[in-house]
């Protein structure tokens, strides 16, 4: 409990400021809308994602098909709604993978210091030295072209960022009086790490997670665009854009709408991330 109170002070989390953050709230509402669309796709989407209509091939947006139809007559809007599943799933799961690897590693590095920190930090340096998307592409290429392996590839490539954030936060927490007090009363190191340090690094990790979901969604779209993510016919915004390239002049709407969907969801996560960052208030403090 003491640790949580101290943690709240450390984070200087301003819930009121978060609530007043108009763009942050708009972002959160948009995120919620996409999540609802992804979950409720079977109910919301006007057509099935794979239902073809040979009489409506590459039709421009109309009342029947708001976002037009694709090269085999599938409804573009329905595919975009269903495609939200792949994007959000990839965003969330790959960030969970990254957090599951990076946060314990960062906690361990910051807590143990010495050789453990030196070795873990060098591994992170090496992973960060390889440009993010190139590492993700290489991993996806070697693992195999499908959504599951793309998520693993993105998660592993994102893990170093979480390790850095968790390590920096742990190093900060370790200088606090309550850690000294916890040591003085004879708590074993594992208990200090899990009960007193871990809850207090949650806030910066949460901000990082939010911003990383945005990056992971773009990364998934990029891998799918290159043919390394979700495979057709399952809808994914990146693979829809890949297919749209062949019909740029005849059916430009096929390239416009999936891109706008990616921008909207990434913007939503960036706005909420910015708001969380402000509410965390690491710089203004007072």
């Amino acid at each position, binding site marked *: 409990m003491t640790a949580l109170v101290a943690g709240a002070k450390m984070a200087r989390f301003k819930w009121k400021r978060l609530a007043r953050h108009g763009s942050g709230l708009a972002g959160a509402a948009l995120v919620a809308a996409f999540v609802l669309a992804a979950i409720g796709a079977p109910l919301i989407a006007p057509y099935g994602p794979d239902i073809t209509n040979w009489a409506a091939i590459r039709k421009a947006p109309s009342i029947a098909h708001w976002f037009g139809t694709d090269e085999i007559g599938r409804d573009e809007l329905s595919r975009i709604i269903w495609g939200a599943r792949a994007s959000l799933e990839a965003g969330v799961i790959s960030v969970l993978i990254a957090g599951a690897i990076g946060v314990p590693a960062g906690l361990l590095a910051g807590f143990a210091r010495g050789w453990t920190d030196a070795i873990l930090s*060098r*591994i992170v*340096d*090496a*992973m960060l*030295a*390889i*440009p*993010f*998307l*190139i*590492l993700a*592409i*290489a*991993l*996806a*290429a*070697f*693992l*195999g072209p499908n959504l599951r392996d793309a998520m693993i590839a993105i998660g592993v490539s994102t893990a170093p960022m979480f390790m850095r954030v968790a390590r920096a936060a742990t190093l900060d927490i370790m200088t606090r009086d309550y850690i000294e007090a916890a040591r003085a009363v004879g708590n074993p190191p594992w208990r200090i790490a899990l009960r007193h340090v871990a809850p207090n690094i949650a806030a910066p990790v949460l901000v990082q997670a939010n911003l990383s979901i*945005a990056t992971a969604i*773009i990364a998934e*779209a*990029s891998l799918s*665009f*290159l*043919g*390394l993510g979700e495979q057709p016919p399952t809808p994914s915004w990146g693979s829809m*854009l890949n297919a*749209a*390239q062949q019909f*740029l*002049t005849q059916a*430009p709407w096929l*390239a*416009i709408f*999936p*891109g706008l969907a*990616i*921008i909207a969801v*990434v*913007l939503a996560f*960036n*706005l909420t991330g*910015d708001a969380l960052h402000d509410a965390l208030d690491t710089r203004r403090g007072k």
Partner: protein
Amino acid sequence: MQSSLGARLLQIIPTMLLVSVIVFALQHLLPGDPAVMLAGDSAGDPHVVAQIRDQLLLNRPIGDQYLHWLVGVLHGNLGYSWELSAPVTTLLLQKLPVTLQLSAMAFVIALATGIPLGVISAVKKGTPLDWLATSVGLFGLSVPSFWLGIVLILLVSVDLGWLPPSGYVPLSQDPLQSLRTTIMPAFVLGNAVAAIIMRHTRSAMLAALHQDYVRTARAKGLSERVVVWRHALRNALIPVVTLAGLQLGTLLSGAVLTEQVFDIPGVGKLVVDAVFNRDYPVIQGVVLVTGLLYVLINLITDILYAVINPKLRGG
């Protein structure tokens, strides 16, 4: 400063060794026999598979395999592309100048747009101009580069016919045509970096504008333009330079997609083609070389930081 530079140079060695371990480990992620997988489309040829097994010492312990591979890499041998029938080093030397040209142009565009937008946004904080610049920055961060590329091809090339939609002309062959083929991809590639630079310039300028030396400059009666652009910006730029340097890695990543969209024959196109041809030695070579480039860029950024930061220059 010399000793810290020496220490920084020494730090590169373990980092690059670990990068090499990651790159080497990649081939062991492959399901099945690495020799068969590395042979790609030539896997049906037992002669090729046996040759790869011999070359990579696949019958020996993994430590021996790594050391053998590393010694080869240190001698410039990054493997052989069975698909393109050429050494990976040769392929990279052919493609790297294209990607470096594109990245350099993108970097210039990112600096030329990101810094002024960040300064204007900070100076006009709270005005519609600030809101507009911040929105442009946020949009730049949220738009996928490959989509921006597709939209620009539609607008600028298909509709307006101003620039070619794809292709590449080397700078040495025809500088003007080279510029025409690379300006749009460079803009697309630089977009996200411009947004990041803009956001950091804005926050660095906001901090700088509240410093005592800015108040002193104003009190001396200097014009606002001189105060902003010569006093505040000069100091605000120090952290921005470091950050901008780190973004060069983002450019190398982004080049993969941009080169794919605009059909530019650089390292990005090479690696994507390699992925589809299961040309694994090429993928490993690209990862290793981009890692090395990124580490070198970081080192140069650190040196630049020390040169432009008066506090470090004196020490």
